[in-house]
């Protein structure tokens, strides 16, 4: 996706800085600092996850081992992991199915309907989530949704739909109407054009949406804490409980496990999260 440029403008220059020694040192220094700042706190988690015995005044763990990593195979952590992943998958599927129609509508509709729709879905993320979710929990208790799989999926959708709706809208907007016009002029119906022409072209956006919603749902904490308790626990809630009891090793193991899907997807799908895609977020 190159994005639209005014005719006659120059393409982006990429990294054509001076190649002198100063620039190289500067680049290395920047990467080193970023490594320390970004990765440093995460390394602390790694340290705690292998600390079999560590109490003051030792500066580093007195005994290192994988005892706490073995807990992954035990019931409660594994259960929280499976539950979390399946909730995330169901949420992602539901998000895609529900947001594609409305995103397409928002992308093609006349102003101001499009921006209004986008703002509507932004609201759950713009408003403080805890009070709204606490109120939703009160309602869910009444409707017998509290502590259920479905209830948690629902609350994940509330916050997660914004990712799929906004991404899909941006992607649909980027697909010019000319192609659809061509198909329609050749006799295809509006809906058929969408499924045969537009949607396949929007596949990268669908993938990007799926990643964002999946990760959001996997990492969701506040809603799950309020609505899912006590039977539907996901990894974040499990980690919180462990941390409350000062079981820092288990909390750290859980934290690292939580990060794995994110890191895998980050590396594998790097190309779908090009910054240019998100340039559209700045312009309604």
């Amino acid at each position, binding site marked *: 996706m190159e994005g639209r440029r005014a005719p006659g403008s120059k393409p982006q220059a990429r990294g054509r800085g001076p190649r002198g020694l100063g620039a190289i040192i500067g680049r290395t220094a920047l990467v080193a600092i970023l490594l320390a700042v970004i990765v440093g706190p995460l390394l602390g988690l790694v340290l705690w996850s292998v600390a079999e*015995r560590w109490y*003051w005044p030792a500066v580093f763990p007195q005994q290192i081992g994988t005892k706490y990593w073995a807990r992954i195979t035990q019931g409660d952590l594994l259960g929280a992991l*499976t539950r979390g992943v*399946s909730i995330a998958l169901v949420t992602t599927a539901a998000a895609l199915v529900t947001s594609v129609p409305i995103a397409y509508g928002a992308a093609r509709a006349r102003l101001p309907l499009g921006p209004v729709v986008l703002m509507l879905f932004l609201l759950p993320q713009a408003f403080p989530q805890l009070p709204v979710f606490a109120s939703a929990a009160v309602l869910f208790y009444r409707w017998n949704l509290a502590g259920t799989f479905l209830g948690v999926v629902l609350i994940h959708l509330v916050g997660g739909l914004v990712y799929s709706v906004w991404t899909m809208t941006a992607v649909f907007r980027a697909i010019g109407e000319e192609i659809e016009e061509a198909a329609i002029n050749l006799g295809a119906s509006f809906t058929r054009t969408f499924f045969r022409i537009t949607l396949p072209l929007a596949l990268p956006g669908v993938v990007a949406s799926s990643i964002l919603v999946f990760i959001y749902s996997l990492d969701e904490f506040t809603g799950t804490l309020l609505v899912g*308790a*006590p039977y539907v626990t996901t990894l974040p809630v499990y980690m919180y409980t462990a941390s409350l009891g000062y079981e820092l090793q288990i909390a750290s193991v859980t934290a690292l496990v939580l990060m794995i899907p994110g890191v895998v997807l980050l590396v594998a799908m790097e190309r779908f999260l090009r910054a240019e895609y998100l340039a559209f977020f700045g312009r309604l």
Partner: protein
Amino acid sequence: MMRTLAVLVAVVAAFAVAGPVTYAQPRVTVQVAVAADVNVVEVHRNHLGVAFSKINPHVTVNAVGTGTGEAASRAVYTKVKAQADAGRKGWDIDVGIISMRYAAQMVREKLLHQFVGEMQFGQYVSGPDTDRAFGVDIKGYVVPMFRNQIAIAYNPQFVSRPPKSFAELEAWVRANPRRFGYNGIKGGVSGIGFTMGWVYYKTGRYDLFVQGPFDKANDGLIRGAIEQLRDFNRNVLITSGNAGTLDALNRGEIWMGAVWVDQLVAWKNEGRMNPDITPVMIAPGLPIYPLYLTVTREAANRDWAAKYVDLVANPQIQAKVIVEQFGWYPGIDPNRVMPLVSSAARALLFRGVTPDDLARYSRQMPLGEYYDAILLAYEEIVR
């Protein structure tokens, strides 16, 4: 491309099905909601629940924690109440392991089943805290899983003469600022217990608070005591919870703290705590707080729930698991349990806090209305 897509779809489907399937229960599953710290949940999950399944092979025990402190018990109460209000049958919590405060409330609101009379070991359930709690008649509704005593733990490396009374503690704290810690009123009941003990000490009106009557006019009395607590707190480290105090003690950040005796023993057993740290009681006293096993009124597996409580109340289990392994004070009649406990375990259990100390300094929590009033005063006056 199509193949990877197919594989992806298969994996997704597998996971999506696995989630709801884990809830499908062909056998009987007794749902146990534990409103206590993680260490208590694990006792049920890894020891008591497992033992129960061995005796009853087609029954599983699913123990889940609902948090810490009073909020955890409140979560159980909310869930049960919602189902009661909706008129549902077959509630999804069979056994609620909750604090005294919420047990009293749930009895009052008729959410619990009176089952102790049908138990095999029901006759061993005795003690003033099984008759009345927070002003409510709870006889027959609750079985204490254990009793938990709040005490002051000190590090002998830094504290040569532990205080024997609140007055001595005050003086020590003034001389050693920020070396004493407790968790305030959030994150755990050890701090709440300490606050109650403080109010008993400063007002000297223990009987009024425990037996009543509740009179709003006594608010001034409470506020006076809490104002002095605010001044006391200036030289104190407020931790984030029960475990927070223990952690601070362990790291040498504080030298004395208000703790649960059982949690202290558990941490020592797990190698997370310096074994020298010892608990003591201080005059006029600190609260003892039982954790109650209750059966909800319309529990889906009500009979199995009662049987599970019976297992926990079995003197053998109380002696071997509750007392010896985890260092709690027995939930049922101690005369039935202690003879079954090994002398080594008994020595560890009563190290620092002897039965004599318990008899003299152990206190009850106050009436529900006074409890709330004290907590509200704390929130308002102490920041």
